[in-house]
């Protein structure tokens, strides 16, 4: 079944309009305002009567907000020159920060290390040409609205742009883009710092908002005549041809060049094994792409994979399979496939290639590879002309129109102008592989933390479900471990329980809906900290049932749980996160279904689980319903045991009843074992305490749990 899911509904930033070439009028001119920058006059600034013009191509840009210590953005500005002037656009990615762990004092390993320090990671190297930046750091699209250049005097010009914030965390709720307003920057040519390939094409200027306030500083240095760069990798079975050109001189390089893309072709595997005969399913294509491509890190290279096989299950000629349900790794638009052994029908519209095997029809075969790669670049069909993004069927049918050349002579070996503009100026996340999904919602795009919260380097969060599958209605228990993974020491919260206030997270259900869970209190400065060396960690368990939007696991299916730990390092908030998958199985019988409905629809179930007590009647009632279900009983046994084992008002703790509940089937997380040990330690009912101790020790003997749990039980 093909599940097309949702489709883009958020407003997309408009592509920039062409800007006419022409001199800035004196009334537009503003004095240079670079009070905080040392002037670095260039050779050109002394020859002010010469006209200066912004060089076409790609600029490495950096925007640093005013007064910001740890927030800076790197990216590209694409300046396209054409007969009507210029069209320009840009993208900004937030630069990583690094928490630099401090080593122990040499020779004194017993002395605790100093606290970690936060520093900005190095920026892209201008000498490396067009930078490729990590998708998860994508933040802004810049739609350039004004490039007013002096053509008579001066060495600066006014750059105007609208700044669009990308909001991947908005999930299914539009808008995905927020226009943060119009900005201008008076850009002045300066001598480039070392490393730039063209020292005379470097500019800096203060960025002002619509109110004239300086909001940051922009630098831009030319790095390439191209606007974007990518690699097309071609892998094939032995019987299929490589689609390298149209047989008449048009190849990938030339086609890319026409739209400002620097395309490299990686003709790689030529003898792929067929997994199930001549015809490949979408899943087989996807699996082969993952297994055979030469480079898989889409954050260092834009690589599109073209798989050439004899036949395809889903279609005749070609498909961009990496979409919808075919995208099994949730990384969209990485690859496409074409079929060399489709036989072109013997009908008039197929012109000179009718009856041919598709791979032998060099021109339409290559065109299909370009067309499918166009889908991988985020383009949809375009019937405005016979260019690359029209469908082959339509172009063949168009050949029967009076005056048309016969197919494939009527193929236009170019992108329609609208598609060319999209390839040059759509936001990076639309065109780069692994960016926004093809025709689907943005829910699967990486979720970015707010810019002021920094990813903690040298720390890993591991999330491990206690059970890989739980029945509908049961709480999901996960163990979390925050551990130092780098060299040197890092300071972290001493506890990672939900009660610490430092832990939060989200659960993505089988349909992509995201629900969050968060602590009742925030992580405060006075939360105890400890310093971890490499390999050391702090662990705890979470029992997840409900969050801010209701039940976290309301339907059967596969869920993804993401747990995030946030705390302060100095005056900077840092974060580390990990995730895991869990399966929720459907109701086994009517009794289970009724009990599941009751616990899932009763908000007080969670409060009873967390707080215990006798006062939350509806919560207790829901848990009783769960205990009456033989499927859910093991998952709620400890919840009820905990409630009964604690005094509430005048009611005395009932350890005997609690012990009875913790039977062999009862499901307990490590934290719940420790909590149960606490009941025993506090109890005056020694007989029941002994019974519960024996049961806990017996249970833990068969489990893989932390030494801490065994230690606590051994002390009983």
């Amino acid at each position, binding site marked *: 079944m093909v599940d097309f899911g949702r489709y883009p509904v958020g407003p997309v930033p408009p592509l920039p309009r062409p800007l006419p070439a022409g001199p800035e009028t004196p009334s537009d001119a503003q004095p240079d305002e670079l009070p905080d920058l040392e002037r670095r006059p260039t050779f050109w600034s002394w020859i002010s009567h010469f006209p200066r013009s912004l060089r076409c191509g790609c600029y490495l840009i950096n925007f640093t907000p005013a007064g910001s210590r740890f927030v800076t953005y790197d990216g590209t500005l694409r300046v396209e020159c054409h007969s009507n002037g210029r069209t320009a656009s840009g993208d900004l990615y937030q630069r990583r920060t690094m928490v630099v762990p401090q080593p122990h004092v040499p020779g004194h390993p017993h002395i605790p290390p100093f606290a970690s320090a936060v520093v900005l990671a190095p920026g892209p190297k201008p000498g490396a040409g067009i930078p490729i930046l990590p998708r998860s750091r994508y933040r802004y699209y810049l739609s350039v609205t004004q490039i007013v250049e002096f053509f008579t005097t001066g060495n600066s010009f006014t750059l105007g742009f609208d700044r669009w914030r990308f909001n991947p965390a908005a999930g299914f709720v539009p808008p995905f883009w927020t226009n943060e307003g119009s900005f201008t920057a008076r850009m002045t040519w300066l001598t480039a710092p070392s490393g730039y390939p063209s020292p005379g094409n470097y500019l800096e200027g203060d960025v002002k908002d619509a109110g004239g306030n300086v909001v940051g500083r922009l630098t831009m240095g030319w790095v390439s005549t191209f606007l974007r760069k990518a690699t097309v990798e071609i892998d094939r079975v032995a019987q299929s041809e490589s689609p390298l050109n149209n047989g008449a001189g048009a190849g990938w390089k030339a086609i890319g060049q026409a739209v400002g893309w620097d395309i490299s072709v990686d003709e790689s595997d030529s003898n792929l094994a067929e997994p199930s005969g001549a015809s490949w399913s979408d899943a087989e294509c996807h699996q082969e792409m993952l297994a055979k491509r030469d480079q898989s890190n889409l954050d260092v290279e834009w690589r599109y994979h073209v798989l050439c096989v004899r036949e395809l299950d889903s279609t005749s000629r070609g498909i961009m399979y990496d979409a919808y349900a075919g995208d099994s790794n949730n990384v969209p638009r990485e690859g496409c496939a074409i079929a060399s052994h489709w036989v072109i029908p013997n009908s008039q519209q197929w012109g000179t290639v009718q009856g041919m095997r598709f791979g032998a029809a060099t021109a339409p075969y290559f065109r299909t590879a370009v067309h499918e790669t166009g*889908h991988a670049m985020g383009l949809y069909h375009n019937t405005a002309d016979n260019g690359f993004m029209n469908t082959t069927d339509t172009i063949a049918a168009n050949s029967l129109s009076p005056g048309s050349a016969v197919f494939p002579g009527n193929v236009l070996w170019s992108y329609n102008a609208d598609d060319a503009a999209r390839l040059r100026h759509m936001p990076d996340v639309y065109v780069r592989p692994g960016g926004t999904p*093809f025709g689907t919602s943005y829910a699967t795009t990486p979720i970015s933390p707010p810019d002021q919260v920094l990813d903690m380097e040298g720390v890993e969060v591991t999330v491990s479900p206690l059970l890989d599958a739980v029945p509908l209605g049961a709480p999901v228990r996960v163990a979390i471990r925050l551990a130092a993974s780098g060299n040197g020491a890092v300071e972290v919260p001493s506890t990672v329980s939900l009660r610490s206030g430092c832990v939060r997270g989200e659960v993505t259900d089988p349909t992509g809906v995201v629900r969050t869970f968060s602590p009742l209190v925030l992580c405060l400065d006075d939360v105890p900290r400890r310093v971890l060396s490499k390999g050391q960690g702090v662990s705890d368990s979470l029992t997840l049932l409900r969050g801010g939007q209701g039940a976290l696991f309301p339907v059967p299916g596969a869920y993804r749980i993401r747990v995030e730990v946030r705390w302060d390092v100095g005056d900077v908030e840092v974060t580390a996160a990990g995730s895991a998958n869990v399966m929720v199985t459907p109701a086994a019988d009517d009794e289970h279904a009724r009990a599941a409905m009751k616990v899932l629809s009763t908000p007080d179930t969670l409060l009873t689980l967390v707080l215990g007590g006798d006062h939350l009647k509806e919560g207790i009632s829901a848990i009783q319903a769960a205990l009456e279900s033989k499927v859910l009983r093991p998952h709620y046994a400890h919840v009820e045991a905990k409630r009964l084992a604690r005094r509430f008002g005048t009611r005395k703790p009932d350890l005997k009843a609690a012990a009875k509940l913790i039977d062999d089937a009862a499901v307990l997380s490590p934290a719940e074992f420790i909590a149960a040990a606490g009941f025993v330690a506090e109890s005056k009912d020694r007989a029941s305490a002994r019974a519960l101790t024996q049961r806990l020790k017996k249970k833990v003997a068969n489990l893989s749990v932390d030494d801490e749990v065994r230690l606590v039980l051994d002390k009983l």
Partner: protein
Amino acid sequence: MDNPLVGVWEKTTVSACSEKYPDTLDFQPNGIYVGHREPQGTFTIWDAGAYSIVADDRVRISTANDALVTYSFAIAGHTVTFTDSASCAFTYRRTGA
């Protein structure tokens, strides 16, 4: 055999599951179709391509990523109702009818 789908159709169903299908559909006699959604440029799963009637009540349509997908359809007077593999049913009315 006359092709009962040929013509221009406007969607009359408003539902979440059918939102990805075009507002207007033009099935041409040569086996080509074009679909549009408003506002212009909005993605639709049936944007352009080929279609062929493979049974009295089934039509195969090439979709936005070039996959060929079979849908069931039923024509009653001037309306056609398509049903996709997720059991989403949605109806179009022939324009000018």
